[in-house]
């Protein structure tokens, strides 16, 4: 067959959102690829320039529906840096708990979508079922299922509900058994291994040069996790490890996310145990000083960074979001070249696309 360009997207089952992957194929082999994004561009950064600081928190939830907590937390972290607010310790611990629950939920959604990409709808339903556990937990804390609007500049919205610790531990115990079941379905299946092993190789040097972060980079064997390397919140007081895998392929990324879910369970347990009493929220000033600030966190998808310029009013002068997937998706041509068209879902699925944060 001659060379041809195939448009995979903007409406395509592989895309998980609205974007377009132009793939140049010869027969079934991919020669080149070119991601086209921007279908979901809302001008988020411009919108924030017209809103007061607290009003932006629910907006930043909408950056990514899969892990909205991390984004609103990142925003609050940035503004706290800008305003010089010290957050009470209990609030930090509560944040760690909800962030890790959110990370589990986000990874579960990723595995669910990955299963569908590879044609296994059962895994989708199983993972979504267990995600419901964590959504229920987060709902009992925050009052919403997806866009939580929970972190506040200077703390969190409300305290944990009375039975939260018991429910949370119970859910974690149940969930850890379920992870074994997923491993049975995925790792136990020779066909899954065939589809993911040796596919979508991203060499560590390439990954670092391209600015790829998060589980995709850790799947290349690079031991980078901002929770350890640039600790925010109370992550440096907790005992946990960075999960990496040396294989550089889709399977390694899958493995890293699986291990990260286990690690998140461990972090939540420890944070619940160590949680101190005390206030949960500090009053934030209305106006920000004239300076710049930024903060970065380890989003489930990679490194999230927000850069804010305050100008003395109650609205930010400029707020910039560094979205992890925005950079990762610019690196996919390297991962795709030389593989088959059928590998596109398994490679693109393994980087965990989220278009809300990519296009902003």
């Amino acid at each position, binding site marked *: 067959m001659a060379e*041809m360009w195939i448009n995979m997207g903007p409406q395509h*089952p592989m895309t998980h959102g609205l974007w377009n992957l132009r793939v140049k194929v010869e027969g079934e082999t991919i020669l080149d690829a070119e991601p086209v994004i921007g279908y979901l561009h809302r001008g988020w950064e411009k919108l924030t320039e017209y809103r007061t600081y607290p009003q932006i928190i629910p907006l930043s939830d909408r950056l990514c529906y899969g892990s909205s907590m991390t984004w609103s937390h990142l925003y609050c972290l940035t503004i706290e840096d800008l305003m010089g607010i010290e957050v009470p310790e209990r609030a930090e611990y509560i944040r760690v708990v909800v962030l890790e629950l959110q990370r589990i939920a986000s990874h579960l959604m990723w595995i669910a979508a990955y299963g569908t990409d590879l044609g296994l709808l059962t895994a989708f339903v199983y993972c979504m079922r267990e995600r419901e556990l964590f959504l229920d937990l987060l709902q009992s804390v925050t009052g919403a299922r997806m866009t939580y609007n929970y972190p506040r500049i200077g703390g969190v919205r409300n305290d944990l509900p009375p039975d939260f610790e018991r429910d949370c531990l119970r859910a974690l115990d149940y969930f850890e058994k379920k992870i074994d079941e997923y491993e049975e379905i995925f790792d136990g299946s020779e066909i899954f291994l065939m589809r993911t092993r040796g596919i979508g190789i991203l060499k560590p040097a390439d990954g670092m040069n391209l600015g790829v972060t998060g589980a995709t980079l850790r799947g290349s064997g690079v031991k980078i996790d901002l929770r350890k390397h640039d600790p925010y919140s109370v992550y440096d007081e907790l005992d946990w490890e960075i999960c990496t895998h040396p294989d550089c392929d889709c399977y390694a990324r899958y493995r890293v996310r699986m291990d990260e879910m286990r690690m998140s369970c461990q972090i939540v347990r420890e944070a619940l145990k160590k949680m101190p009493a005390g206030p949960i929220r500090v009053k934030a000033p209305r106006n920000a000083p004239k300076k710049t600030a930024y903060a970065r966190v380890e989003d489930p998808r990679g490194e999230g960074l927000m850069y804010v310029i305050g100008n003395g009013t109650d609205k930010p002068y400029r707020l910039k979001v560094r979205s992890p997937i925005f950079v990762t998706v610019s690196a996919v041509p390297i991962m795709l070249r030389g593989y*088959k*068209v*059928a590998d596109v879902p398994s490679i693109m699925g393994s980087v965990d696309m989220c278009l809300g944060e990519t296009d902003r």
Partner: protein
Amino acid sequence: MDLYQFTEGIVSWLVGIVNWLLNWLGFHGLAGWLGSPDVIKFLTLLGESIVLLAVGFIVAITMIWQERKTLGRLMDRRGAMVVGPAGYFQNIADGLKTLLKEYIIPEKADKTPYNWAPVIMIGSSILLLVAIPLSDRFYMTDLDIGLLFIFAVFSITPFAILLGGWASNNKYSLIGGMRSAAQLISYEIPLLLSMVGVVLLAGSLNVGEIVMAQENSVWFIIPQFIGFIVFMIAIVAEVERIPFDLPEAEAELVEGWWTEYGGMRFGLLMLAEYFRGYAGAAVAVLLFLGGWNGPFLPPELWFLIKVFIVFFVFIWLRGSLTRVRIDQILNIGWKRLLPLAMVNIVIAVAIKTLGWI
């Protein structure tokens, strides 16, 4: 009394009534023509095929329903449950919906092959039903080369798929069609070879005689276990179900070669898919699982029960496995299944030579 005699009885009775009417009205010539053995035979065959089509249709509908419900339970959900008892009529509702859909032909499609591909597809699938007996009395034809006929008809499908994929003028369809051709052709061979063992043991290509041979000895799944495994894998690939549903791999090729088909054409293709699923499961039952043999229940029922059990295995596979890539599928076909099928033939020859069966 077999199906032919049964239908003939009904047809003669109906013709008798009509003839009486015609005679009474004075059309004696027409009545005589209607009463002639050739016309009666033609009408009987027509009636027989309607019965078979109805059976096939009901089985296919039930299979869709079974798939919905079983897949639902596999996924810890409920499946269709609103329309009709346990959602049985959901398929009918879906069929009606597809009938009411707009009839779109893509502007740049090659119209004639685009229109004919579903016809060939559904036609060949229905043709499959002709050669599949439900029991020794419920059959349409008793071909001496029944098995060969079934697989010959099975292999019409890649042609239809390739035609449809090409005519849709869509890159996904084209790739889907190409994949389908490669896959089906490479799976035809292990499929036929795995069948050879059974044919050797039974000493016939006649489906009825193969079942008879199993009734007299053991079900061929026992001496031909390797053959059975090869056959099951190959037949799953042949009827294009997950893990081998590459021609319509939905994650990468949207719907593969069906992408441009909508409305009732899509419905017909879907139905053809299940007709083929039925045929595949039926052949597995006939060759390896003793056909319609079984105690107590009538043989037709036994046959259908076995078919549904085999189809459950298909659904189960679909619910627990991911899709295989095209080069891997060819690898499995040529490098694994083909040698295994050869080994199976050797076993069959050995068993036959030693006279164990």
